[in-house]
């Protein structure tokens, strides 16, 4: 017998899971909410970690930040795995057509030699910086507290891996494996890259995961992305006929614009929680920002010549304005 189940109208007993209803009321919940909130265990852990015997498996004391509710860290993009993957797959489609466009029309070959060389020189070592960001965000996911912030950090880690891979493809498209090797040499040994490399390596040993979030996702990305992808690629190289390069880095530009909103929301939430947090965040920013600006000086110099100083000043001013908007005290 064919039953048309669709015609049955039955009244649900409840609209969502209990923990979601206690937070948002018993009404239909979004997939982001159901897939995120209170997912991480909080009580009755069985054993202490052999890698951190003084703490519980998930432990709020792995950062000096203090929160009454760690799920205050909401993601404005409302990314759960499916939403994130679909968004990135769409961006990947665009990136793929951009790469195709440049490749099939051989636009790489049409670039002036100095433009191409500068793109390779400045962008390819950033593969390693993106790889560092991948490592750091994996750490924040591993040692952070509450799925609302640990989850997007894992997505962020993979985004950074993807960026490192796009940069690799750019290297292979505009150059060859030799270009990648040469860029790695520069990352390892060239004097003008050492400040940045040192910053990244020092971030690897930061123990406090929220400090790491500030050092990596707010400060370093907040200065590196505008400098390289906006100023150098979109402004400087495009003026010199390098629009093709901007096509190849479109993913990074869009990604930075998108993730900035998320990063800022986290900083804002942390600072709004308490003056204790706000001061802590401010001190972290201050310490890491001066190091980052210092590290970027020789690279800006190289890319922009005498405009380097004023560009970095502008960058610092814009960054200060961004941070102020997040409620970080002066």
């Amino acid at each position, binding site marked *: 017998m064919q039953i048309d189940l669709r015609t049955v109208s039955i009244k649900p007993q409840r609209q969502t899971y209990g923990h979601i209803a206690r937070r948002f009321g018993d009404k239909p919940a979004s997939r982001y909410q159901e897939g995120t909130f209170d997912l991480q265990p909080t009580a009755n852990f069985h*054993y*202490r970690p*052999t890698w951190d*015997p003084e703490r519980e498996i998930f432990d709020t004391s792995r950062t000096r930040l203090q929160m009454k509710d760690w799920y205050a860290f909401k993601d404005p993009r409302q990314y759960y795995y499916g939403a994130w993957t679909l968004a990135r797959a769409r961006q990947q489609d665009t990136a793929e057509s951009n790469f195709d466009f440049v490749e099939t029309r051989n636009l790489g070959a049409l670039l002036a030699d100095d433009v191409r060389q500068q793109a390779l020189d400045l962008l390819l070592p950033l593969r390693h910086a993106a790889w560092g960001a991948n490592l750091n965000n994996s750490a924040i996911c591993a040692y952070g507290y509450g799925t609302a912030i640990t989850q997007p950090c894992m997505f962020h880690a993979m985004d950074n891996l993807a960026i490192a891979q796009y940069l690799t493809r750019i290297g292979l498209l505009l150059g060859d494996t030799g270009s990648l090797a040469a860029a790695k040499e520069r990352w390892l040994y060239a004097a003008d890259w050492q400040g940045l490399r040192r910053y990244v390596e020092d971030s690897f040993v930061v123990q406090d995961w929220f400090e790491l979030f500030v050092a990596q996702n707010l400060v370093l990305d907040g200065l590196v992305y505008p400098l390289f992808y906006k100023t150098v690629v979109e402004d400087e190289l495009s003026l010199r006929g390098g629009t093709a390069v901007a096509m190849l880095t479109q993913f990074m530009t869009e990604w930075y614009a998108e993730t900035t909103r998320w990063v800022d929301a986290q900083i804002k939430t942390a600072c709004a929680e308490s003056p204790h947090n706000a001061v802590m965040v401010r001190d972290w920013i201050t310490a890491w920002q001066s190091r980052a600006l210092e590290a970027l000086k020789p690279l800006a110099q190289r890319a922009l010549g005498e405009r380097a100083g004023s560009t970095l000043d502008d960058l610092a001013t814009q960054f200060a304005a961004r941070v102020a908007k997040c409620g970080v005290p002066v």
Partner: protein
Amino acid sequence: MQVAAVKDYVGVPRDVVDNFHGNQLVFIGWDDHLMFCAPLAFPFPPTLRFGDIVEKVLPGAYGYHPDWAKIDWSKVEWMKSGEPWTPHFNRSLAENGIGHKDAIRFRTPGLTGIQGSCS
């Protein structure tokens, strides 16, 4: 063996007797009666008379079983930590040497559960 760890790794036992507010844990199993899927756990004061367990506590735990009423207590065989052992019904747990988390088993000869299946 030591636990491999980045620094000294010492576990805090969660079930020490001091955590039981004056009670101790005693585990009791009735052999050949797997209708009760596992031995049972009880919190008892060490001053409790052993006979009171058999007379007042176990009927509530095991009385559902048709064999329970047929037990001849004079023939029951007892074990503690897997070794044959004889309890004194009129003595307390402590006087019987029953410590925290001791496991006691009893066998009721001739009674082998539902249709002899040890259920």
